[in-house]
């Protein structure tokens, strides 16, 4: 079965890629399998300067999920361009840079620098784990539109905007970034959560709150993608709890054109490859004959699934 597909900036040989922050810049996973097997790679967030991130503990386990508050630790955009992208570029796969920042200027600076070296940007306006800036961009449609527009302007490649699920109205956010010129959407980032340890009487995560990811949040991701697909005419990279080939199909039926896999890489470093290998058989089991047929397949106005959504 043909799994390949074109999305803005991306020639995906299959609809599966690792999610930002869960795969660093690929090196660690390259010892487990050939990264050329991946549809694409979404790199860890890049900021203007290097960031150390939050205190530890930075992760906590939850029911079928986890909390993290890494705090966007990264070596800074210049070091990523010099030291990380050259390695990833040796593989036959698309590279997406996750762009973060505290100010519009920082977002624009990172985008301008890194976009020459990758196939697309994922604009991260939804990181719940940094105090300054990030949160408002991801929850206020006007700010989201503004930062999107400026990054799109600065970028040489298509911009996918990564939406936060911590909002009352996800469709408003999606429409705002569509207006801002986004080429696609990436959803969802983590739900803000907390765990408290009865032994210490304190939040487990040093940052107090963290982002909830994993199977636990999948129903929220599916709901939001299903909602947005009906209202916004942009391709969606779906994520949030993908652990199996069936999950990939569920995301595509909801309206995603591709999926990213995050936390599940920690449970099984081979998960992306294993799901890619299983996908054709799973699609056949459910009687699908092409990837296009699956995308948006859960919507009544099925006809839409056929049209090119970019």
């Amino acid at each position, binding site marked *: 079965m043909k799994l390949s597909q074109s999305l803005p900036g991306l020639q995906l040989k299959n609809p599966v890629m690792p999610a930002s922050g869960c795969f*660093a810049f690929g090196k660690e996973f390259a010892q487990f399998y050939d990264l050329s097997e991946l549809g694409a790679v979404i790199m860890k967030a890049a900021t203007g300067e290097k960031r150390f991130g939050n205190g530890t503990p930075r992760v906590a386990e939850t029911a079928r999920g986890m909390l993290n508050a890494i705090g966007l630790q990264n070596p800074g955009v210049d070091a990523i361009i010099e030291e990380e992208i050259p390695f990833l570029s040796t593989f036959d796969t698309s590279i997406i840079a996750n762009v973060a920042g505290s100010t519009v200027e920082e977002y624009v600076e990172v985008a301008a620098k890194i976009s020459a070296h990758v196939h697309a940007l994922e604009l991260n306006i939804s990181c719940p784990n940094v105090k300054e800036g990030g949160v408002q961009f991801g929850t206020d449609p006007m700010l989201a539109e503004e930062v999107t527009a400026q990054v799109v302007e600065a970028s040489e490649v298509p911009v996918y905007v990564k939406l936060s699920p911590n909002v009352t109205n996800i469709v408003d956010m999606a429409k705002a970034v569509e207006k801002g010129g986004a080429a696609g959407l990436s959803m969802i980032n983590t739900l803000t959560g907390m765990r408290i340890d009865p032994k210490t009487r304190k939040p487990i995560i040093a940052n107090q709150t963290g982002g909830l990811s994993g199977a636990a949040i999948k129903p929220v991701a599916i709901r939001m993608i299903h909602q947005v697909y009906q209202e916004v005419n942009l391709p969606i990279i779906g994520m949030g709890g993908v652990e199996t080939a069936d999950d990939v199909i569920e995301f595509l039926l909801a309206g995603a054109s591709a999926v990213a896999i995050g936390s599940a890489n920690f449970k099984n470093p081979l998960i992306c490859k294993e799901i890619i290998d299983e996908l054709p058989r799973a699609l056949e089991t459910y009687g699908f004959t092409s990837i296009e047929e699956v995308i948006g397949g859960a919507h009544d106005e099925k006809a839409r699934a056929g049209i090119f959504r970019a």
Partner: protein
Amino acid sequence: MKREWMTILEHQTIARDTYRLVLQGDIVRDITEPGQFVHIQVGSGTYLRRPVSISDFDFEKKTMTLLYKVMGKGTEDLTRKSVGESLDVLGPGGRGFPVDQVDDDHVLLIGGGIGVPPLYNLAKQLKAKGIQITTLLGFQSADDAFLLDEFEELGEVFVSTNDGTLGRKGFVTDWISEVKATVDRYFTCGPTVMLKAVSEQLADLPGYISMEERMGCGIGACFACVVPSHDEKGYRRICCDGPVFEAKEVVLA
């Protein structure tokens, strides 16, 4: 580093809430240093893997021994795995004690509680190199103690317990002043407060410490397990740059 379903060859309790688990598989062949760890997926009741040090291993038999203490859900679930079952293991992870580079006459090993296990294979390798070993072991109580006989076969051992039910009453660090004069280097593993006390008391000696932190990936990709470092890079990842560090490399909180 591999992901492998290893076979459980032995599994029994050796002290209060403390278990000995012997696993067989190809991962053993990849072990390069004592002090490395494996990252275990206990089952569907837990989400994240659990890091456990390799206490001992046998290349020929492809076996490794883990000693673990029940601390919560994951280790609790682990106790229910039976001999013959297989276990989802990722490893060997990280960098251990650089035993090849050590050529001292006499070294000090300091282990606290469930930090004792990774020192065992280290001790065996040091002894095989002809290095004299003195070991300080600290436990809560006599019921929690383990590996005493094993360490005694390798050198002199001083034990302390918090409640005085075995050895001297007090902390493992209480012994240090008495033994430090004769040793050239130290190796330690245990709770962070102990590591800090040890490295301060032995600030004038070269030493290696093995650290713990909550992990996500266990392979260096998620940056969950960082510890600040003294150099320009500013951090180390415990899962892949460690868990063993030179004492002066990292900043102990």
